[in-house]
């Protein structure tokens, strides 16, 4: 039985398409100040270690690690970067507390996506330099390939994917943090410009800027510092094959394996019964459905039908992405998973405001690193 660890503070800033008034440091600083206030800790005195999440080419800086300690209150303290999903960073912080060597650890992830002028070129730079890059195709073709195979294999329809977009953008209307709330119809999605068949422009989540900081604490400190500690019940993470030639194009194996690890740790056997809601990656509309199936929130091929039935709406049997997800809040690059987790924390605290779910005790967050990766991480929380 691992040691009990809780989230005792969350802070966030930005969550808008553009944030020209602040630098990335100032954006991170705002999120950090709020998180430390929320947790009731002084970072210079209380926080023993810091994890930050970054990739050099999304920052435009080699060794971005250099530029993080000051605005987090982390100067001359243990700090390291995880070049992964925000949830990987979160798990790294959690593991440090589990060792018993640390009691209070903070994690930070952010996006200044608006500062990247050539995002698709940079995405292409992540592809295999010998096998795939010479094809000179916009990497969104990978999502097209996967979506096509997924729809074909499971009988899911483009309309069902469009319903995900409509649902998430609608949820976002009730979330003051969301940048892309809208009332749109299935037809709007279907008729939007085709990017890489069958993926259309509105099937893709638009990018946003933002920063998130969370403070984790071991049981004793958590209970001392917080009235509403949110407990970490299970974590899991996994990579499938990076190679486009060898990967599974129908199933999100990385999600299935990450979730199994987290469920095992949390003692969860039937996730759709034991979880109350989920915030899961919806970088592309079909990804929400594919991930629901991989995470065993329904049977294979069933996710599209559940969306049709309204089961995953805020008032439905099993709400998925009540925050609006990335489709509604905006895609925060590698901070996206931490944004999903933030919503789980706010829901479990009863602080989600207009889109608060009733009677929720346990929720799941799942993050995927986006194209062209097969890398994901899952976290289960309870209040």
């Amino acid at each position, binding site marked *: 039985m691992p040691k009990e660890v809780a989230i005792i503070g969350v802070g966030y800033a930005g969550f808008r398409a553009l*944030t*020209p*008034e*602040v*630098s*990335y*440091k*100032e954006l991170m*600083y705002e999120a950090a100040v709020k998180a*430390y206030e929320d947790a009731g800790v*002084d*970072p*210079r005195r209380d926080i023993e270690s810091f994890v930050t999440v970054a990739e050099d*080419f999304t920052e*435009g800086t080699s060794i971005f690690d250099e530029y993080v*300690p*000051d*605005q987090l*209150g982390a*100067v001359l303290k243990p700090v390291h970067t995880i070049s992964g999903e925000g949830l990987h960073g979160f798990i790294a912080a959690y593991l440090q507390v589990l060792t018993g060597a640390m009691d209070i650890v903070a994690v930070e992830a952010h996006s*200044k996506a*608006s*500062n*990247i*002028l*050539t995002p698709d*070129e*940079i995405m292409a*730079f992540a592809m295999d*330099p*010998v096998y795939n*890059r*010479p094809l000179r195709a916009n990497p969104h073709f990978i999502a097209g390939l996967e979506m096509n195979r997924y729809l074909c294999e499971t009988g899911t329809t483009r309309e069902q994917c469009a319903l995900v977009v409509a649902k998430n953008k609608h949820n976002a209307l009730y979330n003051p943090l969301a940048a892309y709330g809208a009332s749109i119809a299935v037809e709007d999605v279907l008729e939007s410009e085709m990017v890489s068949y069958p993926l259309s422009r509105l099937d893709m989540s638009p990018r946003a800027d933002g920063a998130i900081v969370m403070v984790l604490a071991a049981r004793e400190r958590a209970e001392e510092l917080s009235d509403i500690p949110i407990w970490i019940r299970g974590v899991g993470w996994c990579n499938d094959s990076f190679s486009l030639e060898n990967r599974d194009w129908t199933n999100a194996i990385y999600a299935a394996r990450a979730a199994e690890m987290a469920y095992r740790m949390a003692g969860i056997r039937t996730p759709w019964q034991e979880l109350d809601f989920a915030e899961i990656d919806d970088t592309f509309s079909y990804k929400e459905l594919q991930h629901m199936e991989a995470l065993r929130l329904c049977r294979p091929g069933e996710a599209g039908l559940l969306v049709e039935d309204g089961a995953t709406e805020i008032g439905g049997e099993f709400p998925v992405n009540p925050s609006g997800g990335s489709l509604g809040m905006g895609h925060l690059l590698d901070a996206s998973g931490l944004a999903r987790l933030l919503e789980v924390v706010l829901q479990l605290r009863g602080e989600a405001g207009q889109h608060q779910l009733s009677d929720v005790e346990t929720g799941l967050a799942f993050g995927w690193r986006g194209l062209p990766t097969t890398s994901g991480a899952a976290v289960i929380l309870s209040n």
Partner: protein
Amino acid sequence: MTAKIKEFPGVGLRESDFTERKVLFTEWKPDARYAWDAGVAIGRYLAELKEGRIIGVRCHHCRRTVVPPRIFCEWCFRPMDEWVYLEDHGVVNTFSICYVQWDMERLEEPLIPAVIEIAGASKGVGILHLLGEVDPREVKIGMKVKAVWKPAAERIGAITDIRYFKPIN
């Protein structure tokens, strides 16, 4: 273990293997472009450079005046209290005489990068810049130097609005 292993993996190639195309390879020039938001602190710093001034910030808590400016004190983790105009001269904290470019090509004239402690900021607080109008052999740690600004019309709000720092007596 290294004692037992006779053959380690890894094959070293020569430069000629590439130039003579004895090995196959692919090339790629990434088109990675950015427009970084300067934000509050550096935004003001650049605007002041355009006016021919160096500005710093002061924390009343630890009583440090620092440059380049930031909105937070990294030591006290609280907001900075005030903007402070600094002098455009200072003292060489350390320097180098650099004979190569980043691609290791030799330079005709060496560059002299230096950390310059700016007068008006706390002791030891400096910025990175270049030295000019000086014989490289004459440069010393502790030497007093002054900013040589571009003419106002040519200044754009960038660190290069200062051409370099030159020695003063």
